[in-house]
C-alpha cells in the first residue's frame, strides 16, 4: 500500500524539517492558527493548487505553504481565507489544475493574490496567498 507521495515532495518536506531545527527566522514565519497549531503544507511548483486545497481540508486555515522549486530554496507563503470584501483587488478565478508555481509567480509580482476556484458553486470560497 504505497502512499503515492512524490520524491520531490518528500525531499521538500525533509528540507522543511531541517529548517525547523536550524533556522529561527523560518520557525518564526510559520503561521499559528487560532487553535495554537502550526500546520505546514509542503508542495512543489508542479503540484496542482487543487491538491493543496484538498490538504487544507485537514489542516484548516490559515496555513503556511512551503514550496520547493528545483534546487532553489524553500519559498514560504501564508494561505488565509478571506471574505469577498476583505481584499483590495478582484479575486482571481483559477482553474483547480493550475500549478502552485503559477501562484508563487503571481505573489512575486503582486505581493498578495486573492483567488477562488472556478469550480466552486454557491458562494465562492476565497483565499489570499502572500509571502510569510
Amino acid at each position, binding site marked *: *500500500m504505497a*502512499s503515492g507521495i512524490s520524491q520531490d515532495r518528500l525531499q521538500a518536506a*525533509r528540507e522543511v524539517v*531541517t529548517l525547523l531545527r536550524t533556522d*529561527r527566522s523560518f*520557525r518564526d514565519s510559520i503561521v499559528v492558527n487560532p487553535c*495554537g497549531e502550526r*500546520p505546514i503544507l509542503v508542495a512543489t511548483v508542479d503540484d496542482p493548487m487543487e491538491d493543496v486545497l484538498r490538504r487544507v481540508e485537514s489542516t484548516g486555515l490559515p496555513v503556511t505553504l512551503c514550496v520547493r522549486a528545483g534546487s532553489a530554496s524553500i519559498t514560504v507563503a501564508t494561505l488565509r481565507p478571506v471574505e469577498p470584501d476583505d481584499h483590495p483587488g478582484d479575486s482571481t478565478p483559477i482553474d483547480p489544475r493550475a500549478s502552485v508555481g503559477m501562484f508563487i509567480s503571481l505573489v512575486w509580482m503582486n505581493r498578495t493574490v486573492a483567488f477562488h476556484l472556478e469550480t466552486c458553486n454557491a458562494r465562492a470560497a476565497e483565499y489570499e496567498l502572500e509571502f510569510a
Partner: protein
Amino acid sequence: MTKAKGRHRRESQLPEISGAPEVAEASPDADEGDEPGKVEEYKAPLGESDRVVVRIVIGMRGQPLDFALIQQVRDGERWRDVVRYDCSHGEVHEDRYMKGQKGATKKEICGLAEIEDGYKIAEDAIFDGWEENRRRYFDG
C-alpha cells in the same frame, strides 16, 4: 538521560515532549517566536493519509534541547505513529510500530549529547524510508 541533562531539565522545568502519546494544545500566545524551553509542534500533511509531525524544544543558543520526529499514517479515523524518534529514556531512540500491535520495537540511536546528530539520523530514516516504513507498519 545523563544525570547532568536530567538535572538541567528538572531545574529549568523544561517540558518533556518525548515519549508522550500526545502533547497538550499549545497556548493561544504560541506566536511569540522562539521562547527557549517551549515545545513547538508542527504538523505537515504530505498526502491524504500521510503526515510528519515535529515537536521541538529550542535552547537559548538555538540548539535543539529535545525533539520528537514522527511519521504518521491515517488508519481509519485516527492518525497512528509509524516510526517515531524522540529523546525519552535519556537517549535519542527509535520506536517502530505495527498495525494492530501494542507497543513499539525500540532501538537506541545515540546519546543526548549528540542530539543534533540524532535529529539528522531521524530525518534520513523517515524521509529515505517513507514507503518502506509505511509498508512495514501495515504488512509487518
